[in-house]
């Protein structure tokens, strides 16, 4: 780990994992507590990025310089998140056009 670029950052894997946990929990918390769908989507983004961070961290600390599969996964996650955001926001717009609301309380037609 003598790359110039990485000097000055923590050499301890746990710090990255703890950061990821904090971000993930923040995401869950946001998802569970928000009534605004946009807020829920934001929470989901946080959880996805926490996952991506984990991939990068584990890949980086595996001491195998030639393996970038973790990084590839991170890029996939980012792409996935973008696609998901597009679809979700499209649905959201359609819902808003119909109901003039983005609150989960107003979107409860599927109750049994």
């Amino acid at each position: 780990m003598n790359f110039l670029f990485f000097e000055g950052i923590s050499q301890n894997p746990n710090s990255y994992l703890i950061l990821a946990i904090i971000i993930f929990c923040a995401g869950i918390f946001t998802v569970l507590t928000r009534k605004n769908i946009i807020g829920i989507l934001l929470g989901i983004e946080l959880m996805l990025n926490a996952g991506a961070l984990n991939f990068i961290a584990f890949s980086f600390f595996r001491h195998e310089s030639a393996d970038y599969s973790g990084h590839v996964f991170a890029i996939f996650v980012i792409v996935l998140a973008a696609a998901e955001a597009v679809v979700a926001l499209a649905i959201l717009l359609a819902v808003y056009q119909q109901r003039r609301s983005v609150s989960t309380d107003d979107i409860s037609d599927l109750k049994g």
Partner: protein
Amino acid sequence: MDQMANYIWIIPAAPLLGFMINAGVSFFYGADAPAGLKKLSALLSPAVILVSFFIGLGIFLEMLGHGESERAVSQNLYTWIKAGTLEANATLYLDQLSIVFVLIITGVGFLIHLYSTGYMDHDRSMIRYFAYLNLFTFAMLILVMADNILLLFVGWEGVGLCSYLLIGFWFAVPKYASAGMKAFIVNRIGDFGFIIGFFMLFWGVFHYSGTTNIAFDSLKSVVGSLPGWYLTTISLLFFFGATGKSAQIPLYVWLPDAMAGPTPVSALIHAATMVTAGVYMIARMSFIFIATPFTLTVISIVAALTAFVAATIAITQNDIKKVLAYSTVSQLGYMFLAIGSGAFTAGVFHVMTHAFFKALLFLGAGSVILSAHHEQNILLMGGLRKKIPVTFITFFIGTLAIAGIPGLSGFFSKDEILWKVYSTPNEFFPELPLFLWLTGLITAGITSFYMFRLLFLTFFGKFRGDDEEAYEEVHESPLTMTIPLMILAVLSAVSGYIGLPESLGGQNLIHKWLAPVLALKEEPVVNHEMESHLMNLSILVSFAGAFMAYVLYILKPATPGVIAKTFAPIYKLLYGKYFVDEIYEAVIVAPLLKIRLMLNTFDHKIIDAFVNLTAVVTKAISRLHGIFDRVFVDGAVNNVATFTQYQAGIMRNLQNGSMNRYLYYIVGSFIMIYVFIRIL
């Protein structure tokens, strides 16, 4: 040599082909076929019979070229029934006996087909008629050409069927249709005896000799091993079958009614061929009958009675066809009289001559009926001889022949029978031959009387119809009808000479021809002097009968009425045909109908009650089943549904539509799964 023998199969096949074509056309067009097809049918139907006749003639000529024992030819067509060791082949067999019948059937049959083309010319259903007639010829040929009893029975039943179809040909008239049914039912009674007879024969032959071959040739050699009483039972049953088909007492009642059919049918079936099936059958199985003198005695007595009774009835009948019908019954009596005396050749000889002259008489009667515009009552005829000379002359020859006037065929065959009856001793009753002979002689006189009565009433004297116009319109029949009459007249006149008895310097050719294939009694003592005396006596009787008819119906036409009044009871008895039909009605039919009513009551009261009870019980059980169904089966099903609904009621609360709640569930579930996996 013997090339013709390979074509035996054509003899029955040709009429069958004719039947199939006619039946097909008839089936396709119904009653109203185009005139062209009718003409074609009228051409085809006699033609196929002619083909059979020529093949038969060819085989006959070949037979003449062989020795006595090498004359029989046969052809196996296929194995018909194979059950265990029993094997019934469809084998055609021709020997001296059956070739005579084949020639009669196809020869006379052809003439009658030809005659029919004229007689049935105006009938809508002519094609159907020819289909039946061809089928009949086929069945009759199978009957006489059969190699074994079973195949014979096929023909036996086939001719019965055709007889029924043809008697009821004009089935739109209920009387005719019921005459057909009567013939069929009465024949079935006889057939019942016949069937039992041959079942017993199968069983007996198998039981006593171990063979299962039912061909006549084989039976001939094994019947000797059967016990006498058993054989007698069989032969009595066969004879009972013959009384049905050949119209003997007690089953002759159908034949007079069978005159409901078209006249050529009466000629072919009910005079010339089918009714002689019984004679053929017995002659074919002569080896059984000759071994059972008791049966022969029974046959003799029944035959003599039949001959006499039928002849006496014929005296008083006024319907031209009825007279001929009873005359046929009476003549069949003669044939059986011959058989009863063991003189099978004489019987077959009479079959042949009778076929000629009785076919002639019937066809002549048909010609008269057609000329007289469907008048059948001879009391309303008279003086027709000038109007229809050809019919008259031929009918006259036929009358001479049947009346036993010397020189014509009937005389020879009848006299042969009478002589055989007289000269054959009977083991049981020594006096019986004399009585039988006397009955036969008297019957001959009566025959001569009623036939000349018929002739005189029809053709002589003055016309007794309604008006002169009807008489003026009487016209001779077309050539297609008169030519067969002429041919048959010639045959009736000359065919007797092939049986010219030795006492007249003849050879008795037919006897010599048939003798090798028939089981015969020992020749009675030859006594030509006695034979000549008896012959003179019967000539005398014949002329006496004719003379009496001349006196009563030409010289003094008023006398018959006086006689009828003087002997009113006898006249009524004869005119009423001994009331046999009425007796059968009272003794058999009425009780049967009563039993039918009883069975009807039984049905209504007992069977129906039982059925209804069953229904009630079933209903009660069903009700119980219903309760069970509702309570238990439906209960189970409904409870499952209710329970599911109850569960669903609980579960639906989970799904309340709040997205946040769902998210909590998801996260909670993940945590629970994680914990679960960890614990495990």
